Every structure is written in structure tokens, then in C-alpha cells.
């Protein structure tokens, strides 16, 4: 609690922070254990796991809908994946070119 309060963007009452953390713990988003007289809170999921879970539930929501919304989602996903793949490959090629130039500068043609 002592660590959380000073890091907030705006000042909040100690009890408000305590209630919020307690609610997040009860919702299963935080883990906590007692150390002396204080509670130590830690995230239940890593950022990656949390984002994966959010994306999964969003996609599952769309897929459980009527057929047109399913097709729309799949078509959007395919477009996005295609664009992402091309961008990713461009970035990787750029990195390869940079590394090649670096090796030539170091005298390893």
C-alpha cells in the first residue's frame, strides 16, 4: 500500500486505494500475502498473459455471435495479419541490412 499511494497520478485516500486493491484481489486480478502487519500485492497474471486473455475473450465474443459478425471478424483479422506480416518482414529485412553494413564496417565482408 505504501508503495502504491505515492505512484498514483492524482492523490487518493489511503482507504480508497486499500478498497480498490482488495476488490482487485477478490476479482482474482491480484495476489496478496501477509508480511508482518501489511499486505504485499502482486499481479496475478503477467502483462502478456493479461493481454492474451483480453484478446481471447474479445475474439470468443465475436465468434459466438451471428454468422455475418464471425465472417467480418475473420476477414478483418486476415487483413490485419497480412499487413502485420508484411510490416514485420520489412522491419526484419531492415535489421539484416543494418547488421550486414555493421559487419562490413568491422571488416568482415
Amino acid at each position: 500500500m505504501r508503495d502504491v499511494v505515492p505512484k498514483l497520478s492524482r492523490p487518493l485516500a489511503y482507504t480508497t486505494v486499500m478498497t480498490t486493491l482488495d476488490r482487485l484481489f477478490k476479482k482474482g486480478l491480484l495476489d496478496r500475502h501477509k508480511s508482518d502487519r501489511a499486505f504485499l500485492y502482486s499481479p496475478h497474471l503477467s502483462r502478456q498473459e493479461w493481454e492474451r486473455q483480453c484478446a481471447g475473450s474479445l475474439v470468443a465474443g465475436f465468434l459466438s455471435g451471428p454468422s455475418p459478425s464471425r465472417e467480418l471478424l475473420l476477414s478483418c483479422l486476415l487483413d490485419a495479419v497480412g499487413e502485420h506480416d508484411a510490416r514485420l518482414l520489412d522491419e526484419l529485412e531492415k535489421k539484416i541490412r543494418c547488421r550486414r553494413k555493421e559487419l562490413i564496417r568491422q571488416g568482415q565482408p
Partner: protein
Amino acid sequence: MTLPYLLRMVCLCLASFFVLNAVAALLVRISCKSAIRFAESRAPGTAARFLLALRILPFALAILFVGGLCVPSYLWLEPAATAERVGLLSVVLGLLGALTWSVSVARTAHSLASSLRHNRLCRLVGEEIRVPGESSSLVIVENDAPLLALSGLIRPRLLISSGVLHALSSEELDTALAHEQAHRRSRDNAKRFLLLLAPDIFPFVRPLRTLERAWSKFAEWAADDQAAGGDANRAVSLAAALVHVARMGSAPRLPFLSTSLLACDRDLSARVNRLLQASPIAPARFAPTQARLRTISLLLGAGVAALLLAPSALPLVHELLELFLH
């Protein structure tokens, strides 16, 4: 249910196999995350070997127990030519054991057959050439698909499409082929065969797939390191080959008993970034961790052998089995 002598033994063996395999596999599944984290801190080759050993461990333990203790104790201590009642639980577990085995064997046979079919088809439509100094032959298939793979179990063949041959420069092609040769030297297709044969916890559920995927990733990384051989230029050539092949589109679906240059498409970025890092990773010759792993395996083997040879082991196992049977 009353069963004759031999059928009782079969039921007992299958039930013991199912219980032991399921319990050990469950323990492995629980420790899966920690095991993968531990593997990530090791060299890719060591990590791949460790994860494969962990995946096979439940199957190996169950086979060792059944073959080394169940069968000898039954044959030695169970009076022959008697029919005995067998408990319902034993029969159900025996049936589950039989189902587990059948599913594994069927899966393996299906993969073997599709691998043979695929190789035969590639040889029929392609041109097979011998590569000097290499034991496996190279099959060139007239196709634009991004195909560069090592396929087959006993005599794996290198399959390459003419599209890939034309798309890659000679350095890129050399490192890409070296990557596949590294898979051949590591016998990765034989390891895939073992993965198919080793059953999971239950017949149709595969929670240990997480370990298999992690093994596959580290096997690819180890082959990348071997192909680069600690040379920065070779590492860059291999990275360029990976990107060029990825640009050709999605890889064709290959049988399970094969390794492809772009086996884990999702891992492409991580693989390229590894290859481009400042000091390329040289493949480990014989790391101390490997020596430690070998020592642990030897000690484990010696422990199991001592247990099998102990005079009181077989009667004890027989008593336990009797309890289990009824």
C-alpha cells in the same frame, strides 16, 4: 469379473501403465512452467534435450515399471492355471490403458504412413540428387511453394522447391541447408516419433503439448546455432534466408515427422533477432550442464536397476499388484 492367467496379467500391466503414466504426466504438467523457465536459461541444445527428457519421462517410467517389475513379479509369484476375480476398477483402468496405447500407436502409424506417402510423392514429382559428402539425398520439387524441409524417419530426405532454390542466394542456401542438416544430425525426426509414441495423461487430451511446442522452438534455435557455427556472416545469411522464405507465403502443410526451415512461423522474429545479435552464439560442444544431466540420468538408471535387482522388490510389487487387482 473372472479372468484367466494371461489375460489377468495383460489387464494388470495396462492398468499399472495407465496409472503410473497419468500420475507422472500430471506431475510433469504441474512443473511445466518452471521447467520451461529453467530451459530458457540454458543453451538451446541443452534446453531441447531437457524438455524432451521431461516429456518422455512419464512414458519411460511407466514402461520401466511394467516391464521391469510388474511382468517379472507376476510370472514368478502368481500361481499359474488359476482363474481369479478381478476388481471393476482394475478392468476400467486396464481398458483406459489399452485405449491410451491404441491412440498413441494409431497416431504414430498414421504419421509414419503420411510421411512415407509424402516422401514418395515428392520423389515421384521431383528430381532426387545425391549431395557429395552427405548421407541423405536432396529432392528438388518443381514448385513455387516455400518448401525446405527434412522429411522422413529412417532415411530422412531434404526436400526443396525450385522456388526456394531460385529465391535464395548461394550463401543463404548453404546456411539454410546446414540448418536442415543440423536437424538430421540431432535426429529431430526420430525425437518427433518418440513424442508421438509417448502417450499424454489421457488418450484424447494432450496437456503436455506445451512442452512439445517449447521443445520444438529450442530444437529450431539449436539448429540455427549449428548452421551459423558462431560465424556472424553465416548467421546473417541464415536470417536473410528465413525472411526470404517467409516472404514466399505460408509454408505447405508437412507430415509431423518432418522439420521445416520455417517450422514455427510465430517464432520468426525471435529467431532472426537471435541470429543478428552482436556476438553470434556458437553451438555448445559439451557443456557442463550436459555432463550434469548425463550424471543425473546415470544415477537415476542405477537407482532403478538397484531397485529391480533388490531381492525384496518383486514380492513387494506382487503384493501391491494383488491389492490393486482385487
